[in-house]
Structure formats: C-alpha cells, structure tokens
C-alpha cells in the first residue's frame, strides 16, 4: 500500500490524457513510499528533481498552462 493506491483513485484511467500528472504522482511515490525498501540517495535526489518538470507537464496536459516544459 502506498500513495500509488491514492493516485489510482484520483486519476483512474485518465492518464492517457494527463501523462504528466501520473508521472508526477509516480515520482512522488518513488520518493515518499515508506512501504518499499529505502532508495539510494542518488535515486531519491533524481526522482525529486523531476517533480517540478512533471508538475508543469501535468498543467500543460490539462490545459491549465500554455507552457510546454518539453519545449526548451
């Protein structure tokens, strides 16, 4: 059990329409899930570093932002 259960209940199967939001929760889960073995500091830092990107992507996917983080 983990945040993953919660993200499923929130997102359902709508992830095709909002890839960013699912990845955001997946990364959040990878960092904060206390039911799984502890990650290495490097991996944890990596997942944390991607959170902002996927949050922006979720806003873009959902039409709440015109800024596409994939375009530099």
């Amino acid at each position: 059990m983990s945040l993953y259960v919660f993200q499923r209940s929130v997102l359902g199967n709508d992830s095709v329409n909002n890839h960013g939001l699912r990845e955001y929760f997946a990364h959040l889960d990878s960092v904060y899930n206390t039911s799984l073995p502890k990650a290495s500091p490097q991996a944890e830092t990596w997942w944390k570093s991607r959170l902002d990107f996927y949050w922006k992507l979720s806003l873009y996917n959902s039409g709440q932002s015109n800024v596409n983080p994939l375009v530099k």
Partner: protein
Amino acid sequence: MTNIGGLPMAMPEISNLITRNPGLFKAIMLTSGGFTGGLSSTIAGGKFIDGFRQGLITSGLNHVAHSFSGTNTDEKYKQFRKGFRKLVRDEKYIEAATLASDTYSLDSDVKGRYSYSITKSEKSYMTTGGDAYENQVVEITTGFFSDHLGDFVRALHHEFVRVSA
C-alpha cells in the same frame, strides 16, 4: 465516524487496516492532508489541484520527517534480498523480478497486463513499451539486478504505474 485530516472516516475498518499495514496509515495521513489542501483551495476560490498539491507536499514533508527511514532493515527485506541475490547469481532474472513484485505487491493493479524482457547490459535502466490497451513489455537490464536493491524495487513499482496508464 471520526475525522482524519478533515475527512470523515469509519475508524473500526481503518483500525484493522492500520494494524495490518502501518504503511497504509502513513499514506492516509499524507493523502488526507492533500485533500484538505485541495478543499481549502476550492473554498478560497483557487483551483483544487493547486491546493491539493500544496497540501500533499506540506503534509508529506511533515509525516515523512517523523517516519522510519525505510523498510530495508526488517526480516521481510532480509529474506527478500537473500532470495533475490541468489536468483540473480543464477541468472534467473525474471524470477528475481517476480520475487520483488510479489514481496512488495507491486503489480496488484496490473496483473496479466505485462511481461518482462531482459536486456543484457551493464547499464541500469527499465523501460515500459506497448500499444494502448495491449500487453505492456517491461524491459529491465541485467545490470540493474546487481545495482541498489531499493532503487530496483522502486523503479519496478514505477514501471507498473506506466503499465496501468
């Protein structure tokens, strides 16, 4: 009925779940904090998801700061590590991945919807591919099996999120 993080909850059922799975209780604390943030945002006229995110992060940091640092010191982990490492030594990679999935219930939402593909490489990575609504292939390099075990389990869990997409 009682109130956790602003959400009414039936405590007898929750108590049983908590007894069986302390990790779930932490998740409930984290997520109910998120809900409260979202509801506060809606009441204040903002977007629910903005408030939700802030609430989730705030409650997440608070509870994680007080949580145990991981689950890699318990007997379950030690038994898993022993079995996993032996399977890897025998180059039974799919069996090793299955052991990780079964031990931590990683694929409970995606059973029967994926298969493994093992790629011989010293690099550590996993990818998931496949057409929508079709079987998804989770590719794992052999190098990842000898890498950090916590990273492996969490990365596999992460790939199953993609399978469910």
